[in-house]
C-alpha cells in the first residue's frame, strides 16, 4: 500500500519535473522566436487558427454572462431600490472576473483541445520525431508559435468577451427592466475603474500561457494510438480548467495587495 503510494508520489514528482523542464524549453524557444523575425509567419498562422475563429464563441459567452448577471442581480437590487446601481455590479463582475475566466475556459476547450489533438496525433504518427530527425527543435517549431499566439490573443479575446458582456448587461437592464440608460452608464462609469479592466486583461496573458503550455505538453507526452490522443485531450482540458481557476485566485490576491498598496497614492497625484 505504502509502496504503491510512494511509487505514485514518485511518478507525480517525475511528471512535475518533466513539465517544468518543458515550460523552461518553451520559454527559451519563445524568446528565440520573438527575436527571430523569420518565425513570425508561423506565429501569424497560429494566431489566425487560434484567434480569429475563437471570436464568435467568446463573444457569445460574454453576452450570456452579462445578460444572466443582469437577470439575477436585478431582483436583489430592486428590492433595496438600488436598481440603478445594476451597471456597476454587472460591469465590474464582467471585466474583472467572469469575462476573463469564462472566456479562458471556452478557449481551453476550443483551442486547448485542438492543440492537444493536433500535437498528439503528430506524436503518435512520429511527425514530432521527424522534425527532430531533420535537425529542428520541435519545441521551437511547434510549441513556441502556439504559446506566443495564445499569449498574445487571449487578452484581445477577453476584451471582446467584456464588450459583449457589457452590451448584454445593458440590453437586459435598460431594455428589459426599463432602467434609465443615463443613470445606468453613469453609475457604471463611476464604479468601474481602469484598474478593473486592466486586471482582467492581464489575467488573459496568464490564462493564455497556461492553456497553450498545458495543451502542448499533453500533446507531446501523449500515449500511443487513438485512445492515447483522446486521453491526452481530456487531461489537457481538466488541467487547463483547474489551472485557470487557481491562477485566477492567485492573481486576485496579488491584484488586491497591489491595489491596496498603490491605489491610495492616486489621490496624491
Amino acid at each position, binding site marked *: 500500500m505504502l509502496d504503491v503510494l510512494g511509487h505514485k508520489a514518485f511518478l507525480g514528482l517525475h511528471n512535475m519535473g518533466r513539465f517544468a523542464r518543458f515550460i523552461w524549453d518553451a520559454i527559451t524557444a519563445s524568446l528565440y522566436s520573438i527575436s527571430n523575425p523569420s518565425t513570425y509567419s508561423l506565429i501569424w498562422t497560429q494566431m489566425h487558427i487560434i484567434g480569429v475563429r475563437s471570436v464568435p464563441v467568446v463573444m457569445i459567452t460574454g453576452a450570456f454572462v452579462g445578460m444572466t448577471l443582469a437577470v439575477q442581480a436585478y431582483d436583489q437590487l430592486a428590492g433595496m431600490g438600488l436598481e440603478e446601481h445594476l451597471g456597476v455590479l454587472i460591469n465590474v463582475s464582467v471585466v474583472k472576473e467572469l469575462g476573463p475566466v469564462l472566456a479562458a475556459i471556452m478557449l481551453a476547450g476550443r483551442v486547448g483541445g485542438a492543440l492537444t489533438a493536433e500535437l498528439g496525433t503528430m506524436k503518435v*504518427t512520429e*511527425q514530432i*520525431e*521527424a522534425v*527532430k*530527425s*531533420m*535537425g529542428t527543435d520541435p519545441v521551437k517549431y511547434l510549441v513556441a508559435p502556439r504559446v506566443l499566439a495564445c499569449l498574445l490573443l487571449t487578452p484581445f479575446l477577453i476584451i471582446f468577451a467584456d464588450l459583449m458582456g457589457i452590451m448584454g448587461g445593458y440590453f437586459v437592464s435598460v431594455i428589459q427592466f426599463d432602467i434609465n440608460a443615463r443613470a445606468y452608464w453613469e453609475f457604471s462609469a463611476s464604479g468601474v475603474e481602469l484598474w478593473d479592466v486592466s486586471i482582467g486583461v492581464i489575467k488573459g496573458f496568464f490564462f493564455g500561457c497556461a492553456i497553450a503550455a498545458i495543451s502542448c505538453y499533453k500533446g507531446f507526452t501523449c500515449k500511443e494510438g487513438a485512445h492515447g490522443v483522446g486521453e491526452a485531450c481530456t487531461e489537457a482540458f481538466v488541467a487547463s480548467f483547474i489551472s485557470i481557476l487557481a491562477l485566477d485566485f492567485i492573481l486576485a490576491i496579488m491584484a488586491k495587495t497591489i491595489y491596496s498598496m498603490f491605489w491610495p497614492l492616486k489621490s496624491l497625484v
Partner: protein
Amino acid sequence: MSNGNGDNQGVVTKDDGVVVLKNVVKKFGENVVLKDVSLAIEKGKTTVIIGPSGCGKTVLLKHLILLLRPTVGEVYFKGERIDEFNEHDLDKIRTNYGFLFQGGALFDSLSVAENVLFPVRQHYKITSKSGIDELVRTKLAMVGLDGFQNYYPGNLSGGQRKRVALARAIALNPEVILYDEPTTGLDPIRADIINELILKMQRGLGLTSVVVTHDMTSAYKIADRIIMLHEGKIYADGDAEHIRNHPNQIVQQFINGRVSDDDLEVLRMSGTISRSEFEPLDLEE
C-alpha cells in the same frame, strides 16, 4: 575475430565507421530490446539490417541518429561521442543525416512540396523561388512523383507517401541516410526503382546508407554488408554471399522465409478450424 560462422565479430572502436554503436543496451521499462549491440557503419557503404518483425530494427536505426538514447553504451559520429550531447548540439549533428521513417511521418498539414522543402527551409535562407521549385521537382522526380507538388499527404496512397518521405529525407543531400523499410508497400517495379536510387546515391555521391528491410531481393541487390538482428543481438554479419550461405539454421529460415517446425507445430496443435466454430449458433432462435 570470428564466432565460427565467419561473421565479423571484431571489437569496434570509435573510428571504425561514420557512425559507431559501442555496447549499446536499450531497455523500455522491463523490456530489453537491444542487448549489447556493437556496430560500425562504414563510410560510403550500404549496410542492410534484417531480422524478424519486432526484433528491434527500428530501435537500432533510431540510435544511429540519437532519436533514442541508449540505456547503456556509446554512440559515435565521426569519432565524436554524441550520446551525451544535449538536444541542441544533436540538432547540428542530425543535419548530416536523412531519416526515412517506417510510416513515412509526413507532415499532414503541409503539401508534398512543403514537406520536401521542410529541412531546406529550416537550415537555409531561401532567396530564389525558381531555385526551390527546381529543387523540389528534382527530388520528387527521383522518386517518380513530379507533378504531385500540391497534393496533401492525406490524398496519397501508402506507397506514394513513403516515396515523398524518401524525397524529404534526401532533400539536404545528407552524408548518411537511414532507411526504415524503403520498399515495403511498393509494387515490385517501384521497389526496384528505389533500390536503383539507393545504389545510385551510394555510387554516384558516395553516401553512406543503412537500410532496414524484410525484402531479401532488395537486400541482396543493394547490400555491401548484411546484418541480421535477432533477440536483441547481432546474429549474423557479412556480405550477401556470406549471409546466403550462412550455416546457422535460424538465419537460413529467415532469409528463405520458411517457418520452423516448432512454429508449425503450434498451428497443428490448434486443430482444424471448421466453419461451424464461427457460426453464432447460440444466438439463433
